[in-house]
């Protein structure tokens, strides 16, 4: 008579507990997880194959569709990759605007993150507030680039258009609003005794394990390792800006959330500096005729600090007018599959969604 040792259940593609369209097959005994297998591929559109069939400039509208919560990271990566290979020079003002767009995208991604974790914990007021505040940033994007989520604003050679008049004051007003809202978030969310009791000491990740498993970005800093691509492998004008890299160091769900909370303030500081230091000048360099624009055979790996971790493009050109190969490295590539499969074992059933949301696993940038 075969004894039933455990039961299986799914946090599948159709489940509020998963951060996008991914599925986890879990074996549990009582309320403790015994084994977990993640399965991806629900959003695989084969970007890299499609990009090989398109000209260099045709890929620009294609690229932001890779990662939905933070599309600008892909735009800047593709632009930097092509600029390095083609040897284009980007004007100073365009670089400042790019940093402005990137940091605004990071703020909206972090607000999305706070909404996700709070939703998994059951505090439904915070998702309403956070996504409501995120909409202010989307309005700014809409005014600057014409699109709420997919901006297609950063193109190789610079930025599509200059800041509309009065845009800087609008950004400052939104930043001031976000800073005031932070105190409300602290009282209701970050200092909520129940939030701390539910997340402290859950799914603890050590620094060595994170480094070995290729965990990057806020999740790595949450384990106490002070490293940020904007300082480690600087790009655009980040060396000129002064901002520090906060580290919480607990390695558990709580410190991952607080890590993003501290970086939220850092990004606001960066944007304020960018707005003040932005020089005048052109915003884009002339691109050759796209149909005959050939880039000689070369390859480069560019990386950027996205809200989820280190996002990298490996662009290879073979002298034709179409890229030979573009390999996209999303940060959740390691977080969502191997790290989740090893870290989630031993967790309670109630903590698995909270852990997934706190790791900010974004399925589209795993499978592209």
């Amino acid at each position, binding site marked *: 008579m075969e004894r039933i040792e455990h*039961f299986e259940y799914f946090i599948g593609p159709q489940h509020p*507990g998963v951060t996008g369209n991914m599925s986890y097959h879990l074996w549990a005994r009582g309320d403790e997880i015994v084994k977990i297998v993640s399965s991806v591929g629900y959003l695989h559109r084969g970007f890299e194959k499609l990009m090989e069939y398109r000209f260099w400039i045709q890929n620009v509208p294609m690229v932001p569709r890779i990662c939905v919560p933070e599309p600008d990271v892909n735009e800047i990566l593709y632009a930097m990759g092509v600029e390095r290979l083609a040897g284009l020079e980007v004007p100073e003002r365009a670089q400042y605007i790019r940093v402005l767009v990137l940091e605004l995208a990071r703020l909206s991604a972090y607000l999305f993150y706070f909404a996700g974790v709070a939703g*998994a914990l059951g505090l439904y*007021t915070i998702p*309403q507030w956070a996504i409501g505040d995120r909409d202010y940033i989307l309005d700014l994007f809409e005014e600057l680039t014409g699109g709420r989520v997919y901006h297609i604003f950063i193109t190789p050679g610079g930025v599509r258009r200059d800041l509309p008049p009065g845009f800087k004051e609008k950004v400052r007003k939104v930043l001031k609003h976000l800073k005031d809202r932070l105190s409300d978030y602290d009282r209701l969310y970050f200092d*909520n005794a*129940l939030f701390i009791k*539910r997340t402290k000491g859950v799914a603890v990740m050590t620094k060595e394990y994170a480094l070995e498993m290729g965990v990057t970005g806020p999740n790595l800093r949450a384990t106490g390792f002070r490293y940020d691509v904007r300082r480690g492998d600087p790009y655009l004008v980040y060396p000129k800006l002064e901002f520090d890299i906060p580290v919480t160091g607990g390695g558990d769900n709580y410190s991952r959330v607080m890590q993003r909370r501290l970086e939220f303030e850092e990004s606001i500081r960066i944007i304020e500096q960018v707005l003040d230091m932005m020089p005048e000048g052109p915003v884009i360099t002339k691109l050759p005729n796209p149909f005959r624009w050939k880039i000689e055979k070369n390859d480069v790996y560019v990386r950027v600090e996205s809200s989820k971790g280190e996002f990298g493009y490996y662009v290879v050109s073979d002298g034709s007018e179409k890229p030979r190969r573009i390999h996209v490295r999303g940060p959740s590539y390691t977080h969502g599959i191997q790290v989740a499969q090893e870290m989630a074992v031993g967790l309670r059933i109630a903590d698995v969604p909270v852990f997934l949301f706190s790791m900010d696993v974004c399925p589209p940038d795993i499978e592209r």
Partner: protein
Amino acid sequence: MVILEFFLVLIGITALGLLYGGIARKWSARIQRRYGPPFYQNFLDVFKLLGKKNTKSHGVMFALGPVIAFTGIILSLFFLPLGNSRPLLSFEGDIFVLFYLLVIAPLGMALGAGEAANPNATIGIARGLTLMLGYELIFFLSAIAVMVKFNTASLWKIVEIQGTFPKWNLFPFFLSAFAGLIALQGMMGEKPFDLIVAPHEIASGPMVEYNGKYLGLLQLYHAIAIVVETGLFVNVFLGGGSILTFILKTFFVFMLAVTIDNIMPRFRIGQAVKFYWKYPLIISLLGILVVFIWR
């Protein structure tokens, strides 16, 4: 005549429950800086669910589950005094009967959801029953303090003894009332004790396989359950006064619970039970101690 009066009470309480649900959704929408649905939204939801076609069922017990749940909650309506109107079936010791009747409904739903053979449903039920180990005990201890003081176990007599405003049980038995309020939060399944139907963890728990008409029945059960549970608390601690004041009092107690529901995340089930055995237990025991010293 009694049958007619009972049907009136049944329909009235169901409408009241659905109304409370609608207003609660509007109230929490306001807290979340948005407008929220019209107050009669719950009525529409129930009508839509009852109008659904080819509802899928997993067997006889699955179909009977919501029916038993509905029976249990109608039964407890018999014993609940509404304001100063004497309940249809009131006799000595009916608080104990009421406590046991309040268990029939979750048991019926649990049996039905068990037949659905879905682990999500069963984890929800195991959590619900464990939580019951927490809040039922606290509510009983806080009610027993009142019962021992007035040396009666009839809900109706307790309501009569209290009379109008200044003589509510809330003031002499403040500690027991406070513990009862925390227990009420768990009994109604409001956050932070919203573990039974945690959508992110177990995909809406026991209701995972219920659709169409069964879900409509469960919504009706939930609506009446709100009024019955808050009514029980109101009768024991805030008794007396006309039906209108009874409605206002239950509405206020429910709104208090909904407000707390909006600002708290969920407990883990282990933490919830341990919480119940720590602070509320001590508070209710102190409440009983007060009764002894004061007698």
